[in-house]
C-alpha cells in the first residue's frame, strides 16, 4: 500500500507489519540447537547427546563406562530447555497481542482517549503505548489555534460559565463529570452514578471500606435569635417525638428530625432535616445579647426580621442554628420556619410587651461544602488526609484526634457528635496516606471514649467573616507545585508557611441505621467553607475511597433499612412530585417495550401500575371526584359549604422514634382512633402546640394514618419498587406457615397457586424494594395504613408469632 504522506515512506514497515512481526515472534517456540557432531567424544556415541527416548525400555549401555548420573543430566537438560521454551511461548503469546498497554492499568486509571492520545497514559507506559499506536492518527490531535478569528475566541472560563446559567454546578463538578453520569436535579447538576460498573463495589466500600459523596447541594438555613425564642420556633415545626432537642442545644450534637408545617403536626410533613446549634463560646455563658445590627445585604441573602417595639436586654443569649435539608424542599422549609417564627414572636409580644426580640433567617446555600464519607475506614481516611493546625489548646481535642486512628467504625461514637477543628491546606501534604489501624495489643483495647462537649464543637466556620475571607484559596495549585519543585528532596511534604490558609471545619458523625437491626452504615460528614471543595476532594479520595452519586446514597439508605427522602415518605408534597416524574418515565418505558416483553397490566388486573395510590388504599375518596353537593355557580363563602360536607380525611405519615410505643398505647384503648388521638395530643401539648382541632374525628385520624414498614421475604424472590402488598386471610396464612415449616426441613413443597389475590386485599405498596446485598435476600421498605397494621398484629398474635410484643413476620 503506497503511503500518502512523504514521511511515512521513511519508516521501514507500517504498524501493521510491525504488529504482525511482533505476533509472530511472540508465538514461536524456541528450539534448542543440537550439539555439533564434532563435540566431545564419549558423549556422542549411541545417542547420549540427545535427550533420549522417553520410554523406560531404554537400556543403558554400561559398556560405556559412564555412571548413569551423567546421562540423566544430559538427558534432562534438553528436556528442561524445552520446558522453558514452552513456558515462555505460552506467556508471551498470551501477553503480546491480547493486551494493549493501557489494558494493564486498573479500571479507574483507564481513559478512552488513551487509544489515540499517548498523554492519557501514565508516564512509565508512554513509550510502549507510542509504539503500539497506529502512526497516522498521531497527527490528528492539533490543540493549536482554531480557524476562526481572535474576536470569536471564547475563553474556557466563559464557555464554562455559559453552561451554568440555568443550573448550578458544584465546586467539584468537573472532577465528577469526568467519572460519573450527571443529571439535572433540583436546579443542580448532580452525579447519579459512576461510569464504571460499581454497584457491588460501592456496597462493599460502604460496609468494609469507605465511600465519599459530595453533598454540598443540600440547602442550609441560618436562624439567629434569643435561645428560648429559637427553641419555641423549633418546637412548633419539628417532630415532637424527637428526644435530642436538649442535648443538641449545647451544640455538641446535631439533631436529625422531621420538619412539619408550623403547628400542624402530624399533618403536612415536609422533609427530614438536620439541625445544628452553634456552641456558645466558652467562658461567656450569659452574654447579654444586643439586637443584631443590620448587616449589608448580599444578593443571595433573604432576611426576615420581626421586630417588636422598645428594647430591653433579653434574658437568654443569642444563638445561631443551622438547618440543613434537601434542596428541592428549600422553599417550603423556609416558609415553615418563617411562619413559625412569626407565630412565636407574636406570642412573645403578647406575653412580654416590652421585650425586643428578633429572629433572623438567612439563606446560606452555597456557603459551605459538605462531604459525606461512609464506611469503617472513614476515620482513617480523614486522619490521614487532614493535618491539624498546631496551636489548638483544647484538651478534649488533643485526646480525640489521636484516637481517630484506632477507630474501627464511627458507630462507637455518640450519634451526631460534632467536632470543630482547624486544618492546614490539605494540598500541602498531598499525596496523603491513610492512618493505619494498629492491630497489636500495645494500645488499650477500647480507645478513649469521646464525649460530646461544647468545647469540642467550637469552630470558626460559623463565622461569616471567616468564611468569606477564605472564599478564595491563597495559593493555586500552580503555586504550590512551584513550591514543591523547590524542595531539595523530591517528595517531601510542604511545610506550612505563615501565608498558608488555615481552614476551619466541622466533623459530624453520621449514621444510617434502623433500630433493632445490625445493618447500620456509619461515617463522617466533613463541612468546609465554600471555595475549598476541590482542594479537599483529591486528598480524601487519593487513598482509594470510592466516590458515589445519588444512586449509591439511596442504596446505602436502603441497605441500612432507613427511609430515604423522597422515595419512602408517602404523605409529603415532594414525594408526589418525585413519583409523578418517575411514573411518567416508567410509563414511557412501558409503552416503548413490545407487548410480548412487558407485563400485561390489564390481564393482571393491576389497579395502578406506575403510582402508589394511597388514597384508594386508605379508603379515601379520590381527589378528582366531583362532589355532587357543590353547586358550581355558588358565590357563597366556602365555610358554609364545608360545615355541611363531611370533613375530608387527610392522609398523614406516622413516623418517628417513638412509633412502637405510640401504637402500643393506642391499642390499649378499645377505640384505637381515640387512643391515637390522645397520643398525638399529648405530643402536641408537650411542645407547646394546642391540641388538634376538635372537629377532627379520631376515626378519621386513624383512617388516614400510614406507617412505614420493613418487609422480609418468606421464600425466594425480591420485590421491586411499587410492588403491591396484599393481606392474606387466616387459612391462607396457616397454609403458608405449614409450608414454610416444610421448606425448612428440606422437603419438596408444592408451589401455591399463582392466582393474583383480589384487589380488595391490597393493603399497601412497597416504596423501595430490591435484593439486599447485606442480607442476602429480598428486602423492601413500604407503607401500610395503621389500622391494617394493628389488625395484622392481632392476626400474628393468634398464630403465636408475637414475640416481645413485636410481630416477627410480615409477608407479601
Amino acid at each position, binding site marked *: 500500500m503506497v503511503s500518502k504522506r512523504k514521511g511515512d515512506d521513511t519508516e521501514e514497515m507500517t504498524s501493521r507489519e510491525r504488529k504482525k512481526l511482533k505476533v509472530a515472534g511472540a*508465538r514461536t*517456540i524456541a*528450539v*534448542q540447537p*543440537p550439539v555439533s*557432531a564434532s563435540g566431545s567424544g564419549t558423549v*556422542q556415541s*549411541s*545417542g547420549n*547427546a*540427545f*535427550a*533420549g*527416548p*522417553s*520410554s*523406560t*525400555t*531404554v*537400556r*543403558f549401555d554400561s559398556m560405556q563406562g559412564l*555412571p*548413569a*548420573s551423567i*546421562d*540423566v*543430566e544430559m*538427558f*534432562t537438560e*534438553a*528436556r*528442561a*530447555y*524445552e*520446558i*522453558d521454551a*514452552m*513456558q515462555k*511461548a*505460552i*506467556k508471551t*503469546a*498470551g501477553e503480546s497481542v491480547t493486551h494493549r498497554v493501557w489494558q494493564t492499568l486498573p479500571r479507574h486509571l483507564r481513559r478512552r482517549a488513551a487509544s489515540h492520545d499517548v498523554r492519557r497514559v501514565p508516564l512509565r507506559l508512554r513509550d510502549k503505548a507510542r509504539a503500539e499506536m497506529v502512526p497516522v492518527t498521531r497527527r490528528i490531535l492539533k490543540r493549536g489555534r482554531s480557524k476562526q478569528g481572535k474576536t470569536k475566541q471564547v475563553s474556557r472560563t466563559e464557555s464554562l460559565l455559559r453552561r451554568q446559567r440555568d443550573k448550578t454546578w458544584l465546586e467539584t463538578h468537573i472532577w465528577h463529570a469526568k467519572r460519573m453520569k450527571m443529571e439535572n436535579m433540583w436546579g443542580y447538576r448532580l452525579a447519579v452514578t459512576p461510569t464504571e460498573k460499581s454497584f457491588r463495589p460501592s456496597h462493599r466500600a460502604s460496609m468494609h471500606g469507605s465511600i465519599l459523596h459530595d453533598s454540598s447541594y443540600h440547602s442550609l438555613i441560618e436562624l439567629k435569635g434569643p435561645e428560648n425564642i429559637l427553641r419555641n420556633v423549633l418546637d412548633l415545626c419539628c417532630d415532637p417525638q424527637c428526644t435530642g432537642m436538649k442535648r443538641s442545644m449545647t451544640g455538641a450534637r446535631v439533631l436529625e428530625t422531621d420538619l412539619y408545617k408550623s403547628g400542624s403536626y402530624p399533618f403536612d410533613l415536609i422533609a427530614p432535616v438536620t439541625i445544628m446549634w452553634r456552641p456558645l463560646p466558652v467562658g461567656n455563658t450569659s452574654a447579654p445579647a444586643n439586637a443584631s445590627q443590620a448587616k449589608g445585604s448580599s444578593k443571595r441573602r433573604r432576611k426576615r426580621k420581626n421586630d417588636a417595639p422598645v428594647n430591653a436586654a433579653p434574658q437568654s443569649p443569642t444563638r445561631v442554628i443551622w438547618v440543613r435539608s434537601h434542596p428541592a424542599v428549600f422553599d417550603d422549609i423556609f416558609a415553615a420556619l418563617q411562619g413559625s417564627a412569626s407565630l412565636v414572636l407574636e406570642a412573645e409580644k403578647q406575653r412580654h410587651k416590652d421585650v425586643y426580640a428578633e429572629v433572623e433567617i438567612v439563606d446560606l446555600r452555597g456557603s459551605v461544602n459538605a462531604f459525606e464519607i461512609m464506611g469503617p475506614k472513614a476515620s482513617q481516611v480523614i486522619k490521614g488526609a487532614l493535618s491539624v493546625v498546631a496551636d489548638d489548646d483544647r484538651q478534649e481535642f488533643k485526646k480525640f484526634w489521636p484516637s481517630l486512628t484506632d477507630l474501627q467504625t464511627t458507630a462507637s461514637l455518640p450519634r451526631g457528635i460534632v467536632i470543630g477543628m482547624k486544618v492546614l491546606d490539605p494540598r500541602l501534604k498531598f499525596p496523603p496516606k491513610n492512618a493505619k489501624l494498629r492491630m497489636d495489643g500495645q494500645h488499650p483495647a477500647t480507645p478513649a471514649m469521646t464525649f460530646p462537649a461544647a468545647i469540642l464543637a467550637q469552630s470558626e466556620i460559623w463565622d461569616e467573616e471567616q468564611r468569606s475571607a477564605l472564599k478564595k484559596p491563597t495559593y493555586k495549585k500552580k503555586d504550590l507545585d512551584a513550591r514543591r519543585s523547590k524542595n531539595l528532596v523530591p517528595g517531601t511534604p510542604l511545610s506550612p508557611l505563615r501565608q498558608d490558609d488555615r481552614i476551619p471545619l466541622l466533623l459530624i458523625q453520621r449514621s444510617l441505621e434502623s433500630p433493632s437491626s445490625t445493618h447500620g452504615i456509619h461515617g463522617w460528614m466533613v463541612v468546609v467553607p465554600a471555595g475549598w471543595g476541590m482542594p479537599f476532594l483529591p486528598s480524601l479520595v487519593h487513598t482509594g475511597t470510592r466516590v458515589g452519586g445519588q444512586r449509591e446514597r439511596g442504596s446505602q439508605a436502603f441497605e441500612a433499612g432507613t427511609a430515604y427522602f423522597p422515595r419512602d415518605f408517602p404523605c409529603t408534597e415532594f414525594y408526589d412530585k418525585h413519583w409523578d416524574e418517575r411514573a411518567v418515565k416508567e410509563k414511557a418505558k412501558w409503552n416503548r417495550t413490545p407487548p410480548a416483553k412487558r407485563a400485561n397490566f390489564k390481564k393482571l388486573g393491576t389497579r395502578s401500575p406506575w403510582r402508589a395510590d394511597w388514597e384508594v388504599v386508605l379508603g379515601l375518596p379520590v381527589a378528582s371526584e366531583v362532589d355532587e353537593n357543590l353547586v358550581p355557580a355558588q358565590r357563597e363563602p366556602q365555610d358554609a359549604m364545608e360545615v355541611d360536607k363531611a370533613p375530608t380525611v387527610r392522609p398523614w405519615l406516622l413516623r418517628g422514634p417513638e412509633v412502637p410505643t405510640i401504637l402500643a398505647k393506642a391499642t390499649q384503648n378499645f377505640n384505637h382512633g381515640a387512643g391515637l388521638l390522645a397520643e398525638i395530643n399529648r405530643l402536641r401539648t408537650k411542645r407547646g402546640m394546642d391540641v388538634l382541632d376538635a372537629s377532627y374525628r379520631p376515626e378519621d385520624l386513624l383512617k388516614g394514618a400510614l406507617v412505614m414498614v420493613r418487609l422480609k421475604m418468606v421464600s425466594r424472590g425480591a420485590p421491586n419498587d411499587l410492588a403491591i402488598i396484599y393481606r392474606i386471610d387466616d387459612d391462607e396464612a396457616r397454609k403458608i406457615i405449614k409450608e414454610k415449616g416444610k421448606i425448612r426441613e428440606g422437603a419438596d413443597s408444592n408451589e401455591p397457586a399463582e392466582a393474583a389475590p383480589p384487589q380488595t386485599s391490597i393493603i399497601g405498596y412497597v416504596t423501595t424494594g430490591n435484593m439486599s446485598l447485606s442480607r442476602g435476600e429480598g428486602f423492601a421498605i413500604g407503607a401500610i395504613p395503621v389500622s391494617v397494621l394493628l389488625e395484622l398484629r392481632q392476626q400474628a398474635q393468634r398464630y403465636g408469632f408475637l414475640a416481645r410484643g413485636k410481630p416477627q413476620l410480615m409477608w407479601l
Partner: protein
Amino acid sequence: MVRFKNRWLLVEFVDTSTVDASAEKESLSTRPLDGRLIYNALRDSVVTNFGDTGWGAVGMSLNVKYFSPLTNLCIIRVARDQHRIAWGAVTLLTSIHDVRVIPRVVHVSGTIKHTQLSAIAHNREVIARFRTKLKNTAFHHDSYDDYLARSTREIEALHD
C-alpha cells in the same frame, strides 16, 4: 460466526536405533531431522494411505509448528474436521528419509497452549522417570531439584 477450529497433535518420534541396537540401521544422530523433512514424510504418508483426496482435504491446514531434534517432540497443526486423516497418516509413518522411526501421539488438543502445557508435563515425566532409574538416588542431588520446584510454581501460574 465461522471460526477455524484446529487440532494440535503432540507427536514424539521414538528413536528405534537405541531400541533395536542393531547396527545396520542408521540412527537419527547421523541424519538430524527437520521440520521440513517431517512435513514431506507426512505428505507422502497421506498420499500413500489416503490418496490424493486425502491430501487435498488435509493439505491446506497441515503445518509443522515445532520440532526439536534433541527431544524429538513435534507439534503439528491440522484442521479439526480432517484431523483423523492426519492422525492416521502420522501413525502409519514408518520411516523418514530412510530412518526408521516410531511416531507416538502423546496429546491432541484444540489450542496450542494446552499442547505446550502437555509437552511440559511429558518432559517432566521423562525427567522423573530417568531420575528414578538412578542407582544412587540418595546421594546424587542435581541442580534440577530447584529448577523443578521453580518451574512447577510457574506452570501452576500459567494454568488458568
